[in-house]
């Protein structure tokens, strides 16, 4: 056993951020498994990269875990059936981002029969590990949806020294990662030591916010595992401060390294991985079952019964909400994810994607903006040290040169500026528009 000083404090702290209410009432509720819905709709784009092409045709019989779509493109993750049943058709679906993509519809037979060909996977080299991540259909489950096999594959000359496991979960309401820590500690443990061994990380840092003592204890037991003879696995206690779990922020807290614009953590020798992504990966190696279901936190004053539930991918938001007591009549706004970065659901038939981790329903309205009083709170809250109010002014014209000088492209869209604004100005939205304006003016 290692001594207690294994618990690290952040080595560096980003400026900005905001103190948010936590609303984590679902934290102590065990995950309920949602029964299969009558049909699932599996979108061909559930990751950053190229969309998949269907490998099945109407009438094909599939099982849970059968690969139904893939692509020869590198940046892409294959998609597997989340139910057993029959392929009934294809349709276009609207993704939360506003893009549309093709989707496969599968009618469930209600049996959830696993694919008989699935079997545990043995990986002994880094290449096998990366290949397995791809076959699992794994993407960053914290919300970004970046294909994990791309994150893990590196050019031969790139030196990776630190693996950061992100269990910060700093968005209000969401407790999905927290439940993963409590319900699957052994998968996380296996994942940590496997990745460390095969990828040759010099150290692993498990980062968690200080408002989650039970999950903290779980991660502590992992950091003090007897396999860690050289004391290379550390636990880092982070302050509960939004956006602590943002990739650049947690990377800086753990290592003091600043991730430059447009670079990946691997460029500064790190891999940052969401704790559920790691756990799902370890479970895939243990059981052979690829990523076909996802734990969603369904919460907020607008839902009937707030709870965590394990949901087959491709179930509709409507199905999931029905399993959670439906929407209350006072619900005014429903979104995928937490209230700071969540994407609104306009149509409840939208399917659950791999990177979704919550459905939250709120009852408030849209606050009417009043003129900016230049209090500077948006700049003080910006973890990227930007001046959102100045970007807003430059966007009125819009002045691309000025927007570039103000570095609007550094925005990580965490939402702190809009949250803190006493004049209720939609600053994050405006900065998003500024970013796309900059991209367009650069391409022109």
């Amino acid at each position, binding site marked *: 056993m290692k001594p207690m000083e294994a618990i690290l404090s952040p080595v560096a702290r980003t400026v900005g951020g905001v103190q*948010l209410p936590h609303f984590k009432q679902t934290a102590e509720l065990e995950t309920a498994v949602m029964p299969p819905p009558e049909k699932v709709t599996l979108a061909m784009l559930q990751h950053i990269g190229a969309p998949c092409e269907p490998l099945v045709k109407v009438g094909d019989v599939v099982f849970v875990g059968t690969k139904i779509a893939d692509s020869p493109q590198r940046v892409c993750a294959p998609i597997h059936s989340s139910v057993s049943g029959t392929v009934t058709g294809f349709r276009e679906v609207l993704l939360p981002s506003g893009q549309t993509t093709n989707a496969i519809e599968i009618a469930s037979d209600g049996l959830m029969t696993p694919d008989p060909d699935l079997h545990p996977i043995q990986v002994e080299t880094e290449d096998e590990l990366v290949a397995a991540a791809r076959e699992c259909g794994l993407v960053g489950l914290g919300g970004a949806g970046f294909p994990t096999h791309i994150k893990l594959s590196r050019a031969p000359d790139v030196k990776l020294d630190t693996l950061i496991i992100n269990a910060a979960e700093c968005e209000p309401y969401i407790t999905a990662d927290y439940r993963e820590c409590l319900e699957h500690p052994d998968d996380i443990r296996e994942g940590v030591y496997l990745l460390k061994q095969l990828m040759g990380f010099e150290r692993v840092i498990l980062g968690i916010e200080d408002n989650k003592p039970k999950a903290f204890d779980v991660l502590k037991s992992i950091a003090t595992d007897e396999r860690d003879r050289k004391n290379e696995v550390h636990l880092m206690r982070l302050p509960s401060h939004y956006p602590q779990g943002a990739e650049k922020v947690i990377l800086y807290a753990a290592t003091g390294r600043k991730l430059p*614009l447009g670079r990946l953590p691997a460029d500064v020798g790190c891999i940052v991985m969401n704790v559920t992504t790691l756990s799902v990966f370890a479970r895939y190696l243990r059981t052979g079952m690829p990523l076909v279901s996802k734990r969603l936190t369904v919460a907020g004053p607008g839902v009937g019964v707030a709870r965590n539930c394990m949901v087959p991918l491709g179930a509709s938001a409507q199905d999931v909400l029905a399993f959670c007591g439906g929407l209350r009549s006072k619900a005014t*706004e429903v979104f995928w994810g937490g*209230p700071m970065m969540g994407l*609104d659901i306009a149509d409840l038939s939208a399917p659950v994607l791999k990177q979704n981790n919550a459905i939250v329903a*709120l009852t408030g309205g849209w606050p009417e903006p009043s*003129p900016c009083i230049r209090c500077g709170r948006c*700049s003080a809250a910006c973890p990227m040290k930007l001046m959102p109010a100045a970007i807003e002014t430059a966007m009125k014209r819009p002045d691309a040169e000025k927007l570039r000088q103000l570095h609007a492209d550094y925005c990580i869209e965490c939402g702190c500026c809009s949250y803190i604004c006493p*004049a209720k100005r939609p600053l994050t939205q405006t900065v998003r528009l500024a970013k796309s304006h900059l991209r367009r003016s650069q391409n022109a």
Partner: protein
Amino acid sequence: MPDRQFLVTSSPHLRHTDTTRGIMLDVILALCPALVSGIFLFGWRAALVVAVCIVSAVLAEWICCKLRHRPSTISDLSAVVTGLLLGLNLTSRLPLWMAALGSVIAIVVVKQMFGGIGHNFANPAITARIVLLVSFPTAMTTWAEPFSDAISSATPLAGGTYTLQQFLLGTHAGCIGETSSLMLLIGGLYLCLRRVISPIIPVCFIGSAALLSWAFGMDPLTTVLSGGLLLGAIFMATDYVTSPPTKWGKVIFGIGCGLITILIRRFGASPEGVSYAILLMNILVPHITRLTTPKPFGWEAPTA
């Protein structure tokens, strides 16, 4: 739930409870100790001057919004703050029509003509006070002695010896809200604790003024506690719109205010320099902000 309509908005979907109105209300609350002490010291005439300032400021704001065909902004209470600040910067013996004129100048000329709340480049109350001072120098410098109707033309800035107790309680001639240092400090502490203002500007302003006056052989304590220095440093120099939003910008702004104040008091023709100092620094704010804008997180110098 078929065909149910939902709000579709850009994230975030959660907002802090603070509002513009709440911030203004905090500033008003923070000025209340100084106001009460001013009325206590200088009587009902002081209350009347402040009331006239507030009412005419709000009325001017309302009329301007009507004329500009903009939604009325009087409910955000910023006009009340401007009127209140101006009133506290006047002598209790000022003719009421001058007080009203000051408010109209502050709101119409300094604030609304530049686009209303958030768009003025100079502090409305300060600028209006300066306009009144150069227009009506005698009326603006005819002070009342506390607790009496006697006229005094001398504030501690003109010399004389005063005790610390007199400074703290404000029992000497001066503007309605500027004499009681203790009440102003209480208000400033409240604003800092409520995080309405950052202490950087007041600390740099007061600190640099004290240091410089000591360097010039003046008494630092008298410098800080006399005239409008505390009122200006805590409540006027910290005005959001007319001070830099960046940390180092605030430092430069505060030190600049302190420096100009002392230079005017020491070498200028006027015994008081706080208003001019703040106004001059107001003008420099865009440049200070530009010079002190931090590089974004993870910024790399472009490699040529």
